[in-house]
């Protein structure tokens, strides 16, 4: 079948996938069989006819497994079983549980699976090393062919003279015309042995591959026995020399600027599953836009992308999908080993494709963390041992240090203009070399969508302006490479604030939308810059005030209700002034069952719940574009929490209503907790007294009504935010102090005892929540990392 029916495992659970297939006797005895998985996620035990043949230690990368001949059967169906566990965690899996702007990641069998049938005497692999003449006109290819003899005893007997094998190697152009052919290479090879044959092939006047001229050759290897063909292997090869010099990146000996974009595969319904047609369409669109390279970040890819890159003329940057790893995890031995294993498997499989130009080790590294530098050194060394690929890593700030065997140092910019860090960038260029420092991810998220001009932050127009300015800056600073993040909008697993409160986890950071429409002005600007076309005019527009009127209306309503309540009678005014100014006396009255109006208290409680909701809604609305806040929430690795925070931040009215209701429920719970605590004291405490104490202890909150009306505007101005947050913390502490005072009066206990137990209780509660999350998701480590990342 050729359909694209794949299983996507959404939850953590062991599942067993089984598939039956038939093989003939000849296929088993005269072939070498290999099963190829383009992607299974995450860990898997692979069994053939109830015998485990391979243990996949985790990761979506493609891999091959040999099918042992002795386990296969021809008299009945063979059963291939994959016992799969999809369980991403915060410490050891790649990618990790906390994934900022990662494309969707599903478990299961998420790409093609097939059996590759080769002869039993066959060319297992080849290693091609090109050497270029100094003028890049001639190429010398060193071809190492690994040949294996897997013949059975039965097939070996009666074979005659074992010395009459020979290997024929030739190079043809894409049309099949032979360009160069090596003389036949005779050799002998015993059963169950292998041989590596190294030959040199000269290609004078070879046409070198480049993004502008993406013509490739085909290396054809043929094995003969007594002039009868026993195996043919063909491989597409593109001849180019990409080097990182101190002053520039060189392609085929000439200075070359990598103009790239980051491509993510994140379909709403299918995740990373897309058809071959769609893959080709995307790659051709990237090429058509004028890019010459593509970075596949935060995800593994279908290897067909590499074939397409070769075909269309794009240099591919592939990387381990890790991002923002806390130092404790980055320094952990098991994480380092897993990363190395991942890297090893990456290079082994993807390394066969010529367009694979550079291997990356992930993003959001902090140069000030020793663990990050050490991890990168280890990975860079491992990569250089395995291949001659360029190595790169992406950092979230500019205080970079030299790392052995790391060729390229990427700097990430999100929202902020690169020009702001011009001084540091030029310093880095002096220190590390101009050819070493590049822009690995230049991102401008679109939170608000379309507007009338770029004066409105986070609009498509502002995104276009951001990229226009970035291109102007790039021409000044002469960076060897840059990658626009991203080529297209895509879907992720977590609800980011970039989703603007939508229940679709669509990350709007692309030049194109998720349907690949080219209508966005940012695409037009980038297209014109990449292709040296006429300047695209971006409308200026007028800055719109996004301050929600609902905060003012809601605040005024609360003020009116409070006014009505204050003027409802002298009793309330007296109670309020006593509660505020002489809380000890007031709480004594409550304890002694002096008359306090339940209606007044309840109305006051509702107003307090609403005022708290108003303040919190203001803060959430202000933080809706804060990356730091998003990272803090993400540390808890809870898609539900992210979704809720995203929804509340972007929907102020609903936030006010939901938070008011939530506060009322919380008031009831806290009152019940206090009542339960009263069981440990001798004094009899009535629930109604607890209720009154709790409500009236929170009285100072009503003073925040005017603050709630203007809070967003003040926070938006940004000049006194720290003082505002300190002021709000002060009010919280004041209320807490009043509550504890109320409790000790109510319980008739020593103040010190109540304070001590209350503080222990609060610390234990917060501590146990954090302990739980730390144990389950390493939350504290991620929280601390977020503080370091944002220099707070």
């Amino acid at each position: 079948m050729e359909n694209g029916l794949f299983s996507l495992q959404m939850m953590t659970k062991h599942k067993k996938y089984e598939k039956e297939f038939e093989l003939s006797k000849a296929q088993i005895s005269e072939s070498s069989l290999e099963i190829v998985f383009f992607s299974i996620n995450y860990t898997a035990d692979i069994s053939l006819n109830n015998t485990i043949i391979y243990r996949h230690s985790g990761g979506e990368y493609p891999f091959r497994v040999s099918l042992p001949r002795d386990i296969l059967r021809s008299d009945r169906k063979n059963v291939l079983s994959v016992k799969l566990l999809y369980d991403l965690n915060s410490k050891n899996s790649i990618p990790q549980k906390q994934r900022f702007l990662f494309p969707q990641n599903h478990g299961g069998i998420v790409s093609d699976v097939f059996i590759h049938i080769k002869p039993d005497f066959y060319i297992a692999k080849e290693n091609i090393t090109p050497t270029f003449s100094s003028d890049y006109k001639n190429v010398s290819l060193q071809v190492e062919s690994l040949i294996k003899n897997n013949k059975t005893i039965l097939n070996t007997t009666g074979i005659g003279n074992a010395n009459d094998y020979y290997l024929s190697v030739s190079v043809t152009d894409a049309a099949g015309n032979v360009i160069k052919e090596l003389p036949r290479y005779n050799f002998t090879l015993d059963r169950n042995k292998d041989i590596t044959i190294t030959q040199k092939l000269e290609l004078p006047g070879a046409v070198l591959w480049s993004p502008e001229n993406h013509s490739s050759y085909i290396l054809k290897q043929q094995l003969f026995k007594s002039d009868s063909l026993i195996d043919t292997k063909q491989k597409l090869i593109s001849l180019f020399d990409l080097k990182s010099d101190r002053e520039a990146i060189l392609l085929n000996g000439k200075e070359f600027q990598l103009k790239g974009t980051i491509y993510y595969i994140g379909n709403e319904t299918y995740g990373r599953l897309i058809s071959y047609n769609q893959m080709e369409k995307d790659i051709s669109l990237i090429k058509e836009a004028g890019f010459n390279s593509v970075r596949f970040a935060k995800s593994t890819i279908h290897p067909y992308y590499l074939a397409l890159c070769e075909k269309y003329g794009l240099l591919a940057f592939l990387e381990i999908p890790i991002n923002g790893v806390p130092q404790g995890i980055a320094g952990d031995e098991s994480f380092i080993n897993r990363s190395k294993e991942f890297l090893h498997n990456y290079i082994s499989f993807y390394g066969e494709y010529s367009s694979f130009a550079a291997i990356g080790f992930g993003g959001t590294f902090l140069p000030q963390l020793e663990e990050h530098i050490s991890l990168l050194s280890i990975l860079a060394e491992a990569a250089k041992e395995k291949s001659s690929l360029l190595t790169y890593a992406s950092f979230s700030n500019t205080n970079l240090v030299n790392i052995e065997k790391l060729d390229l140092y990427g700097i990430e910019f999100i929202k902020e203009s690169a020009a702001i860090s011009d001084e540091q960038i030029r310093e880095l260029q002096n220190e590390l070399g101009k050819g070493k420092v590049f822009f690995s991810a230049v991102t401008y998220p679109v939170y608000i969508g379309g507007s009338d001009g770029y004066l409105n932050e986070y609009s498509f127009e502002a995104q276009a302006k951001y990229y226009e300015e970035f291109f102007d800056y790039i021409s000044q600073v002469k960076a060897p490479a840059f990658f626009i993040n991203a080529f297209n909008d895509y879907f992720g697993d977590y609800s980011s604030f970039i989703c603007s409160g939508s229940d679709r986890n669509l990350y709007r950071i692309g030049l194109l939308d998720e349907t690949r429409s080219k209508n966005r002005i940012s695409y037009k600007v980038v297209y014109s810059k990449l292709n040296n076309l006429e300047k695209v005019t971006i409308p200026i527009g007028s800055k719109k005030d996004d301050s929600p009127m609902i905060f003012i209306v809601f605040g005024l309503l609360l003020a009116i209700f409070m006014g009505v309540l204050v003027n409802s009678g002298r009793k309330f005014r007296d109670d309020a002034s006593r509660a505020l100014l002489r809380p000890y006396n007031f709480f004594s009255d409550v304890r002694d069952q002096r008359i306090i109006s339940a209606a007044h208290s309840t109305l006051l409680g509702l107003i307090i719940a609403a005022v708290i909701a108003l303040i919190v809604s203001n803060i959430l609305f202000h933080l809706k574009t804060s990356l730091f806040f998003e990272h803090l929430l993400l540390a808890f690795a809870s898609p539900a929490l992210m979704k809720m925070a995203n929804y509340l931040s972007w929907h102020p009215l609903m936030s006010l209503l939901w938070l008011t209701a939530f506060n009322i429920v919380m008031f009831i719970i806290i009152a019940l907790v206090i009542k339960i605590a009263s069981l440990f004291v001798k004094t009899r405490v009535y629930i109604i007294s607890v209720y009154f104490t709790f409500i009236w202890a929170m009285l100072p909150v009503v003073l925040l009504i005017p603050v709630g009306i203007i809070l967003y505007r003040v926070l938006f101005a940004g000049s006194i935010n720290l003082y505002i947050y300190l002021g709000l913390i002060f009010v919280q502490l004041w209320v807490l102090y009043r509550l504890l005072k109320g409790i000790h009066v109510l319980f008739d206990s020593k103040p010190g005892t109540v304070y001590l137990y209350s503080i222990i209780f609060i610390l234990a509660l917060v501590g146990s929540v954090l302990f739980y999350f730390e144990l389950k998701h390493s939350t504290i480590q991620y929280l601390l990392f977020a503080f370091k990342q944002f220099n707070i």
Partner: protein
Amino acid sequence: MLTFHFRSLVLSGILTLFAFQFSFSQIVFREVPDYKIRLMDSLFFDITQTRSVILLNGEWTVQPADDDKAQKV
């Protein structure tokens, strides 16, 4: 009456637990539209006159790892 309430409470509890369990063992099978594996790209799939492939896409049976009840897709 009280017994009735208690019984329905227990029943709904069991149903909730069942639904919870079910939701945590969710597998979704998705058929990608327009999906056709490009076997004609013989260079990519390493298909020659001596080499071939057997596709194993689709129609896998899936079951919980410790369960005999299989689901065919």
